[in-house]
């Protein structure tokens, strides 16, 4: 009985996959689809003429599941940033054009390249009613700098944080650091209620208490979060919706269904084909939000007998990869080829100008021959979440052109994590993953230095020259564009971690139930960034 059930199931799944994966012609889209923007930098803008109030329901695929709890400073994944950003705020934020904008600091000055003075917005209170003070800001930044947070490294060479009167805070850097303000604009740099944390009346790992637009009313792990509006919120008229329910629905089909039947007003989608599935759905609008997140390929140079110890072999792989094809075929034309500085960010390198971009498959074959690796074969370990399998298949086909045989090993995320990060040296050949790209071109580039990043020390060897170029690009002195170009070229030649294509976010919403605001490009993976602006047209 079981074999029959299994056979039927597999057949049906294959048919369904085949139907979903093709557009009838079998032809891949030729170029990235242009994003429809309603205003510069916006995919959607909430209609503020609509009345405020109502209940807003959204669906996302994953809950925050960190062992570190809900402490914003220790949060290191975008799904957690997204949820925590509903209750916590930072001194500055990122605008639709990636410019740094005021948030809890209404303005700031830079008396010298190493000094920043932030003037705090008056009338800001935490959701318990206590006014936010300069001590909270100073305490929060000092706590972050003293923590084991990943974000501590992104803040750069902070020398001191002090009060400058009762309403200003001064941060002094040891040397100029270009990404400093962008690093302050993400959830881990949120202003926390330090008085309550200090007297231990609040454990930020278990309770959310910030200055943000929403207050947690209820949370059931992996089921839902329920928020109510923070009536003390400093921005007049915000948030618009009275309640916000975030339903956790891991199955994409369930999110699509809830969207179609009106159970949810906005949902994040993972499969690039889901937009086509919703094409005929009345009142459902599907948009693709570009992000600075990007996929990359890891080539393990630290394993015993590594196939990638010779840089010529790695360069051959980099040359043979066709990023444009990965973006078109695996991501439905919605991704963009990128270097280590995420495509879409102002100042990012041009991937077409990288050393590997101007070379051919014949060059790759010659490099392999020179390295004595003509019959190179290796295993590519990937997690099973879409679109990673599709990306891997294009990689497999690309490398086949250069005579490289790739075996794809598809694992569940936990097994994949164990294999890639579980021990040092790691025992995989190659692996596929993605990075959050952040909001400054130099930030994610820092992960190319395993001595700074740490997590990749199990499969990557530090390159002094590359590390120096990355540091120079972030130093805030000299010609930054030139420094970033040099760092991108060096990382391309080193090729231990090869950047591939940006990772788009598909968002669908009920146009008859919701008028949302959405950036066209997002730097911190936060689809709910502008949720306080969203106007509910009708609630269920």
């Amino acid at each position, binding site marked *: *009985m079981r074999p*029959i*059930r*299994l056979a*039927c*199931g597999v057949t*049906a*799944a294959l048919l*369904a996959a085949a139907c979903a994966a093709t557009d009838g012609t079998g032809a891949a889209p030729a170029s990235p689809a242009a994003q429809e923007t309603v205003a510069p930098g916006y995919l959607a803008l909430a209609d503020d003429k609509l009345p405020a109030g109502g209940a807003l329901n959204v*669906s996302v695929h994953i809950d925050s*599941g*960190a*062992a*570190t*709890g809900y402490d914003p400073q220790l949060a*290191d*994944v975008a799904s957690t940033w997204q949820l925590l950003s509903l209750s916590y705020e930072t001194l500055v934020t990122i605008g639709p054009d990636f410019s740094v904008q005021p948030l809890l600091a209404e303005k700031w000055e830079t008396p010298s390249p190493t000094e920043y003075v932030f003037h705090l917005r008056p009338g800001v209170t935490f959701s318990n009613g206590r006014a936010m003070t300069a001590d909270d800001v100073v305490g929060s930044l000092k706590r972050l700098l003293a923590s*084991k947070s*990943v974000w501590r490294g992104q803040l750069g060479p902070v020398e001191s944080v002090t009060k400058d009167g009762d309403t200003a805070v001064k941060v002094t850097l040891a040397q100029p650091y270009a990404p400093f303000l962008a690093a302050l604009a993400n959830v881990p740099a949120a202003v926390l209620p330090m008085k309550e944390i200090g007297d231990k009346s609040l454990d930020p790992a*278990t309770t959310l208490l910030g200055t943000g637009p929403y207050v947690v009313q209820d949370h*059931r*792990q*992996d*089921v*839902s979060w329920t928020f109510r509006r923070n009536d003390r919120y400093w921005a007049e008229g915000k948030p618009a919706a009275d309640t916000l329910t975030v*339903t956790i*629905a*891991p*199955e994409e*089909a*369930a*999110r*699509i*269904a*809830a*969207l*179609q*039947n009106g*159970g*949810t007003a906005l949902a994040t989608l993972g499969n690039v084909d889901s937009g086509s599935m919703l094409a005929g*759905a009345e009142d459902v609008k599907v948009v693709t939000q570009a992000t600075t997140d990007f996929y990359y390929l890891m080539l393990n140079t630290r394993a015993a007998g590594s196939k990638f110890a010779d840089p010529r072999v790695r360069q051959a792989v980099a040359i043979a990869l066709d990023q444009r094809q990965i973006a078109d075929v695996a991501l439905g034309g919605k991704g963009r080829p990128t270097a280590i500085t995420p495509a879409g960010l102002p100042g990012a390198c041009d991937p077409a100008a990288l050393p590997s971009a101007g070379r051919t498959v014949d060059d790759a074959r010659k490099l392999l021959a020179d390295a004595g690796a003509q019959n190179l074969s290796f295993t590519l370990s990937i997690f099973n979440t879409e679109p990673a399998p599709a990306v891997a298949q294009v990689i497999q086909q690309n490398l086949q052109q250069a005579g490289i045989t790739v075996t794809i090993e598809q*694992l*569940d*995320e*936990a*097994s*994949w*994590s*164990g*294999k*890639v*990060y*579980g021990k*040092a040296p790691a025992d995989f050949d190659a692996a596929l*993953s993605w990075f959050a790209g952040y909001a400054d071109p130099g930030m994610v580039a820092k992960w190319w230095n395993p001595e700074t*990043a*740490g*997590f*990749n020390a199990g499969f990557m060897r530090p390159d002094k020259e590359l590390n120096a170029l990355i540091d120079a690009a972030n130093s805030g002195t000299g010609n930054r564009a030139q420094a970033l170009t040099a760092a991108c070229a060096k990382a391309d030649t080193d090729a231990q971690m090869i950047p591939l294509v940006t990772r788009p976010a598909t968002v669908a919403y009920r146009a008859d139930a919701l008028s949302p605001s959405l950036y066209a490009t997002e730097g911190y993976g936060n689809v709910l960034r502008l949720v306080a602006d969203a106007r509910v047209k009708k609630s269920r």
Partner: protein
Amino acid sequence: MRLLMWWCGRALSSAVTLLGVSVLIFAAVRLMPGGFAETVLGPFATAAQRAELATRYGLDQPVFVQYGHWLAAVAGGDLGVSMISRAPVGGELLARLPVTAELTLLAVAVSVLAGVPLGVLTAVRARPGGGGAAGRLLSGLGVSVPEFVLGSLVVFVFSRYALGLEVGRWVPFGADPAANLATIILPAAVLSVFSVSVTARTTRDAVMNVLVEPYVTAAVGRGEPPWAIVRHHVLRNAATPVVTLVGTTIAYLLGGALIVEHVFNLPGVGSYVVQAVGRRDYAVVQAGVLLAAGVFIVMNVLIDLLVGVLDPRLGVTAGRRA
């Protein structure tokens, strides 16, 4: 005295079975590749942070020591704490149990209410060498199509044509009974397809076996109407295999609920355990599997008792165990 002995025997064998299950599941979750620390701390954690986490949850101790601690806690009624939510697993299971129980009971009800009459009907209507092809095809399909395929299809169709029913949302019965039914009917229907088919098939075979018994022939000879024969002679005598099947079906449905809850996004025990497996949240997986094993064992005991009531020749006091 014999009944007391039977109860003692069953209690002992149940305890041994549960102990065996506990060893197996404890070993299995730790043999899964990818540990808790790698999974939940993500790529950015340092080796020291991973070690600290392992120490906090006792994962750095030998496996048999971890097992001993867990077993002692479970014996004392403590199912442990979720390493993700830090909430007691017992409380979380209790909160999710009503969803799974409602789903499973509805599916069982559908199985019995649809499967038994279908089985009786097809048996009574059966002609030697003729007909029944459509029934066989349908029941064949019913037992062949896995829940995730059928569930995905139903989700797709009903998300476009809701017909008053809902997918992708859950409303507790206490909050709104009508909305609750609208959200649970489809998952229960999907979950019951397999068991309806099996129940119909089993009932049909059991009824056909009874129909050839001499006492049925005698009743026919006496000129009793067909449905009176079915009611008076056939149903009780055919009930034993059907009751046994329904009991084991409940255990099967609990397994199926795991998939169905995931597909329909119902916040039951099944989806809780599925997500816990993905994140290597050991205490949740162990408790979930132990709970399922416990339900299976209790169901078997109840079946034995019920079978004894229906047919004393097979009952516990007759010294035979079904």
